[in-house]
């Protein structure tokens, strides 16, 4: 009988215990990253301690590095041990290289204010942020990448320095818009903060009639709570810095998961950087899904780390696929039987620690259920896969998750699914979802189309890299399950969630894909050392591309403080119950007052007022119409309208006599419904019924082209648009 194949890595990934056993570098503590509880003897061979001090025969030893803090009494069924060939030690002198990373990081941070000062955001066009960035911004990105690479190449990478360099890298790439733009970008983020405001204004009542998202109010309530408890009036600063903070927390999760799945001291950092570099999806803005991904990653990290188990054949043959090319395939029935009857081995953790981690995971699972619609589905799918193949101890967590979803949707949100069953079950039309999520998005000018094509290429590259990593992982661990975790979210496409469904699929698969991709890159670097230089250059290209792709929509996603101030002023001056409608979806419309003011009904043919201004203004019963610089650019670069189109619409509306211009600063415009002359006389005669409104309206009627400045609005420092 053939000897069972020896794994190159420990079968389990019990957190730090999964780190690859390698001889320590000179002067390095033996257990620093090997992480095992067992001790090394002087020659580097491993002593496996057993209760009672008995020595285990070599054939029965386990790889088996017990997690630190492992319960030594617990029996495990880990795979047989092996001795890895000693890797050549790196004799490169430390020299000045130890100062390289800190210097690069400092220079990168120092360049950021210069980048902010030299970037003309009003010159943004269809190519987005990359087009207007100056040398300082690109220099900051270059230095941030250099800080990471130089530390990774160091003889003994310092974890605090790598962490700092990673933080700088995030700030200089994902966080670049937060640094150089004076207000939070993305109209949807401002809509979300409007939902938070609604909960705060309603004293904790979720206005479910306004929007279906209020059926999952936890995120909005959470930030309303923070806002009220912290005595803040608005969350503008939180909105601005939310994306880099969320990416940082997610990168910590990727690093933690990478430690469990990849081992080593360098690979987990590369996985984190790969995640940052391929995170073009922009789902990290102030939104429920951004936080939900943190929760999902927390659960997955512990499921694949400290709670990881592996169902193995007691005879030492892991089953299908064949463990090595020459191995005879076992009969199918036997494989099933063996798999079914072999209990998963136990995580090397004390029972109290297990219970504690279960409790924490359940908290996260329940929280994600009440926070977001899609994330719990993806998470439960991934946990189900792990449970079915026996790679995860803690199926009770999965049961609790399924029960929580069922109770939440079918009991708590009964009104939602009975009234909107179509949304819940989806259209099931994957083709339509593909059309809406991919093909329909390839619109706009040449820059827009190029950037969007680049997104599709990046998504394809991510899955391709993950697939190559799957092969490498299979060769190393005989394990295909991780790739399955990246594939499971694709089931969301069958639900036909809508145009954002595909973004979510990539979002939920990305953490696993980058870890597998890192395995592929590590395999390449070990096979062909000069590839390290190529990979360093590729990292630079990747982050440059990321800035181009993430900032591709910046022309109409960038929000300016004067736009925010203008909308707040409109809200302050408009009587309750009136409709405040924007030309299109760009800009910070709805950032507050959504329970008091309407935002236009969703009428067929009038998806946005700009489609047919006179007709749609009537159909939507618009009392106040607003437009922003971002709205103008939305039309120009995404809808291929001629520059100045929004001013033409203003002209149409004003000349129709139905609206008067009450405020204009470039393309930031407020129009109010004209009051008929008889009503006007009545109001003047009978005193102003709506004191706040009256003044503004009358002034506007007198000065159709005037620029009566809202109190909070900044003067037009720069002309918008052109």
């Amino acid at each position: 009988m053939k000897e069972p194949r020896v794994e190159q890595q420990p079968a389990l990934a019990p957190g730090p215990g999964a780190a690859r056993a390698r001889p320590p570098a000179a002067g390095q503590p033996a257990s620093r990253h090997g992480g095992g509880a067992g001790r090394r003897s002087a020659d580097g061979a491993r002593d496996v301690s057993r209760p009672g001090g008995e020595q285990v025969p070599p054939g029965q030893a386990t790889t088996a590095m017990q997690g630190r803090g492992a319960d030594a009494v617990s029996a495990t069924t880990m795979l047989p041990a092996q001795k890895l060939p000693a890797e050549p030690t790196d004799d490169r002198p430390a020299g000045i290289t130890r100062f390289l990373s800190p210097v690069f990081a400092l220079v990168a941070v120092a360049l950021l204010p210069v980048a902010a000062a030299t970037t003309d955001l009003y010159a943004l066009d269809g190519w987005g942020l990359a087009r207007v960035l100056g040398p300082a911004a690109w220099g900051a990105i270059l230095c941030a990448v250099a800080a990471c690479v130089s530390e990774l190449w160091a003889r003994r990478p310092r974890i605090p320095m790598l962490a700092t360099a990673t933080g700088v890298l995030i700030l200089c790439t994902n966080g670049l818009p937060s640094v150089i733009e004076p207000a939070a970008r993305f109209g949807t983020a401002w809509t979300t903060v409007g939902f938070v405001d609604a909960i705060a204004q309603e004293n904790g009542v979720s206005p479910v009639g306004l929007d279906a998202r209020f059926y999952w109010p936890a995120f909005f309530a959470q930030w309303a709570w923070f806002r009220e408890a912290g005595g803040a009036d608005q969350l503008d600063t939180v909105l601005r810095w939310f994306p880099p903070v969320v990416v940082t927390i997610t990168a910590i999760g990727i690093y933690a998961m990478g430690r469990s799945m990849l081992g080593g001291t360098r690979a987990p950092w590369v996985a984190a950087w790969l995640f940052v570099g391929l995170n073009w999806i922009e789902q990290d803005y102030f939104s429920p899904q951004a936080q939900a991904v943190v929760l999902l990653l927390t659960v997955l990290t512990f499921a694949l780390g400290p709670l990881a188990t592996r169902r193995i054949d007691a005879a030492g043959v892991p089953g299908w696929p064949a463990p090595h090319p020459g191995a005879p395939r076992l009969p199918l029935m036997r494989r099933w039987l063996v798999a079914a009857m072999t209990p998963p081995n136990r995580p090397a953790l004390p029972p109290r620690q297990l219970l504690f981690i279960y409790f924490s995971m359940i908290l996260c699972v329940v929280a994600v259920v009440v926070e977001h619609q899609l994330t719990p589905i993806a998470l439960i799918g991934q946990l189900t896969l792990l449970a079915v193949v026996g790679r995860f101890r803690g199926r009770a967590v999965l049961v609790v998750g399924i029960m929580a979803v069922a109770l939440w949707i079918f009991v708590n949100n009964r009104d939602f699914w009975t009234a909107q069953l179509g949304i819940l079950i989806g259209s099931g039309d994957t083709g339509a979802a593909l059309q809406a999520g991919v093909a329909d998005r390839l619109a706009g000018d040449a820059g827009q189309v190029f950037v969007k094509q680049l997104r599709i290429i990046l998504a394809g590259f991510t899955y391709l890299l993950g697939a190559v990593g799957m092969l490498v992982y299979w060769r190393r661990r005989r394990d295909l399950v991780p790739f399955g975790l990246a594939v499971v979210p694709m089931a969301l496409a069958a639900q036909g969630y809508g145009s954002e469904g595909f973004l979510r699929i990539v979002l939920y698969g990305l953490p696993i894909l980058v870890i597998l991709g890192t395995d592929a890159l590590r395999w390449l670097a070990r096979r062909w050392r000069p590839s390290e230089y190529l990979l360093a250059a590729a990292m630079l290209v990747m982050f440059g591309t990321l800035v181009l792709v993430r900032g591709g929509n910046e022309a109409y996603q960038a929000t300016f403080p004067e736009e925010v101030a203008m909308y707040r002023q409109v809200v302050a001056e408009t009587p309750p119950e009136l409709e405040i409608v924007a030309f299109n979806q760009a800009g910070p419309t709805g950032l507050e007052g959504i329970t008091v003011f309407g935002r236009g009904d969703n009428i067929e043919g009038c998806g946005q007022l700009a489609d047919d201004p006179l007709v749609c203004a009537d159909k939507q019963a618009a009392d106040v119409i607003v437009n922003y610089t971002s709205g103008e650019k939305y039309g120009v670069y995404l809808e291929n309208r001629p520059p100045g189109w929004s001013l033409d619409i203003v002209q149409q509306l004003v000349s129709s006599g139905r609206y008067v211009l009450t405020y204009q600063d470039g393309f930031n415009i407020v129009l109010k419904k004209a009051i008929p002359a008889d009503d006007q006389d009545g109001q003047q005669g009978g005193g102003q019924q709506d004191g706040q409104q009256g003044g503004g309206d009358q002034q506007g009627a007198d000065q159709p082209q005037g620029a009566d400045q809202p109190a909070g609005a900044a003067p037009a420092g720069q002309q918008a648009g052109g």
Partner: protein
Amino acid sequence: MTVNSTAVDTRARVARRLVAVLLVLAGIVACVLSLLGARAEALGDFRFLVTMTFLILGPGWAAAGFLRRAPAAHVWLLAAGVGIAVSLLVAQIMVSFGLWNPAGALYIVTLLSVPFLLRHAVVAQ
């Protein structure tokens, strides 16, 4: 013979204790400023920052402190995850049961978290 140094562990323990102490202070300061109703320009911003930091990390660190001998990344991830989860669930409970009282919830979370944080400040895992 290789002797494992405990220097790294000690540094990690000190860091974990320090974070626990800072979070205790943050919780207390947040509650005091809430009671005082501080809304002045700089003080108001400080109050919001401290309150938000405590509500996100305080309960999470109180829980993550029980994670034994885990790498820092696992501890921080669990702290963030549990902290976010707790704040989401508390907010959801306030909404679902009509118990909207942001300041009261802050005091309760502080009251429940601080003893555990103090414990972690003294006995770091």
